[in-house]
């Protein structure tokens, strides 16, 4: 029983971090059809923003979370205004924007390196302490990470499904021209989606850094995992990404316990291969249907 709880806690914590990282990535792909290679840096910037301001303000977690999300949203918006919007209507958008955001990631990483150096700082914006469940100690920060992920993903779900704003995003994702004919200002929608995804990335960065450390490279590994999850779920499928993130987190924790830690990620990659062979459109993807 103890072991089952420990695996569950680890799996849910990993899943929550993966979900926060992958949902934003899926949202951008679903709406703009672009793979944002700078998404990992959006996470990193969110984490560093909370870290930096905590030194001045002694931030509590909710405020730190808002700052991380604001920083992520800001960098998302700026990325759109300064780079993406100029490429949207050009030829080979998907390839060009991937290269451009990869370049942006390198640039942002170097800027962070210049400002903060490479020292592995610890994230002060987190919750200390443990609770006990059936004799197993669970850190409060793990609980917070899962809670934040569930709240934010639920909020995104509500936003996309129950609001007019969400409807415009879905309409744009389904058919940009048709949405414009219906009066949707799609360029604004793209801007909003970049901001929204950036905010999610900022939150993910704060949560991830609370369990690891801050470094300019900290977004690389989560971006890779988020990409794997998005492929398994079906690129651009927001709900699928959330579900797959938790499922893969639990799978990884189980594999690590049963077969060894070193087999966790290889099994995830094996799963990607199997999914791509069996269902190239992903577990939740649909062929020839614009997904969201």
């Amino acid at each position, binding site marked *: 029983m103890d072991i089952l709880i*420990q*695996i569950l*806690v680890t799996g849910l914590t990993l899943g929550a971090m993966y979900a926060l990282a992958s949902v934003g990535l899926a949202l951008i792909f679903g709406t703009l059809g672009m793979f944002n290679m700078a998404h990992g840096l959006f996470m990193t910037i969110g984490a560093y923003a909370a870290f930096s301001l905590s030194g001045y303000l002694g931030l509590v977690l909710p405020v730190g979370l808002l700052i991380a999300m604001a920083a992520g949203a800001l960098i998302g918006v700026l990325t759109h205004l300064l780079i993406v919007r100029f490429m949207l209507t050009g030829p080979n958008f998907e390839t060009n924007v991937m290269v451009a955001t990869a370049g942006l990631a390198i640039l942002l990483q170097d800027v962070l390196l210049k400002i903060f150096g490479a*020292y592995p700082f*610890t994230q002060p914006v987190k919750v200390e302490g443990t609770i006990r469940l059936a004799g197993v100690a669970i850190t409060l920060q793990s609980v917070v990470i899962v809670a934040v992920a569930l709240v934010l993903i639920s909020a995104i779900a509500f936003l996309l499904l129950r609001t007019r704003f969400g409807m415009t995003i879905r309409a744009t994702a389904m058919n940009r021209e048709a949405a414009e004919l219906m009066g949707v200002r799609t360029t604004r929608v793209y801007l909003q989606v970049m901001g929204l995804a950036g905010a999610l990335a900022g939150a993910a960065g704060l949560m991830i850094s609370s369990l690891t450390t801050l*470094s300019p490279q900290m977004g690389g590994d989560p971006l890779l995992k988020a990409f794997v999850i998005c492929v398994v779920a079906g690129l651009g499928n927001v709900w699928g990404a959330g579900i797959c993130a938790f499922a893969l987190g639990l799978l990884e924790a189980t594999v690590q316990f049963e077969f060894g*830690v070193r087999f966790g990620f290889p099994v995830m990659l094996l799963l990607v291969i199997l999914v791509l062979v069996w269902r190239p459109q992903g577990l939740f993807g649909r062929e020839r249907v614009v997904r969201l």
Partner: protein
Amino acid sequence: MSDSQPKAPSRRKFLKTMGISAGSTAMLAGLNQSASAQSSEPVKIGCPAPLTGIVAADGIEFRRGLEMAAEEINAVGGILGRPVELVFVDTESKGDDVVIQAAQRLIDRDKASALVLGYNLETGTALHDVAADSGIVAMHSNTVVAHDELVRSDPEKYWGIFQYDPPETFYGIGFLDFVKGLEDRGEFTRPNNKIAIITGPGTYSTNIANAIKDNADKYGLEVSLFESVNVPISEWGPTLAKVRADEPAIIAVTHFYAADQAQFMNQFMSQPTNSLVYMQYGASLAAFRDIAGVNSEGVIYATVIGALQDEIGSGFAEKYVGKFGDTSSPNGGGQTYQALHAYAVAAALAGGPGEPYEEDRNRMVADRLRNLIYRGPMGTMRINPDGQSAFCYPSQTNDPSLGMPHIFSQIQDKAVGGVLIAPSPYDVGAFKLPSWMKA
């Protein structure tokens, strides 16, 4: 290149700067005063270092150590009147390909007379061919037996490549001997005979883990868990679940990244087992204590190249922390600091270093280095001609003045570095049972 007389430092400046490395700096100053400089061109020292990426905490210290040593050397007139100039290339915590390119660039573009570095995340012998083919001296602390094997395979080719600390093979047996010593002195009684070994994927970590595993039974220990982890790793839940399911008397973490080790302790301490926790090298860095905080207290770590806590080592550490701040690590910076000082003395004794491809001159520097017994803040560097690594005390010599000590420390207060608890005569404190263990 213009000729000029070497600059002799003023007595006041000399006394001010000689500080803790008094012996070697004084020797260098003496050589500088008595020599006629051939040139005032700087001596370029190249350093490929992991200044970013997962082991950047170490890379930053390697750079600081070199900067501090270069300042001191230049303050007494450089190497025979030629100032030392450092050139760094970031290897980004990456592997052989990046290290090879970095080393080649330092030699061909920057005309480095020597490469003096700490370790990189490569196979341990990446820069050997680059340096050997360029006819320069290279000094590293990769801490791998692969270095010895390669040098031994072709000593004529690798005459200038030195590992200025002992190879990692001494760690495994040394650790088991250390535990036995604690038990013999009644300082530790194992609650059972199990040992859990957690290693990273690299050769260094794996070799140490295998040495512990292969010799555990000789010390009456049974390996209850042998786990290899991917790096970087922040979520230790599955590994800790196994540890908690079958509590060992000893946990040996040979995966050596400070940040990962700190996260291990943070998660271990939420529900600790009655186990002695040993961590390889990473816990010696200030970043470990910074991240793990109070959870770092009680951890034992070892290194074959760490700052001693005697007059020389403590003096260095004090000056180093004073210069670079509380989050700096003399254990990391001391490596390159000591290496550059040793190189400077050897180069001065040899009549000055050569440029790349000036093999005859650089061979003279290597010969001096090979015969040098250099005492710095990390202990004595004496090169074993068979493999060109430093001798290890006490594993290879029972004379502490003739080998680099394999030191064991315990963090007893997170605010300060670990207390050196073995071997004698360098120990300054006694082992304390960690707070999470039952007496």
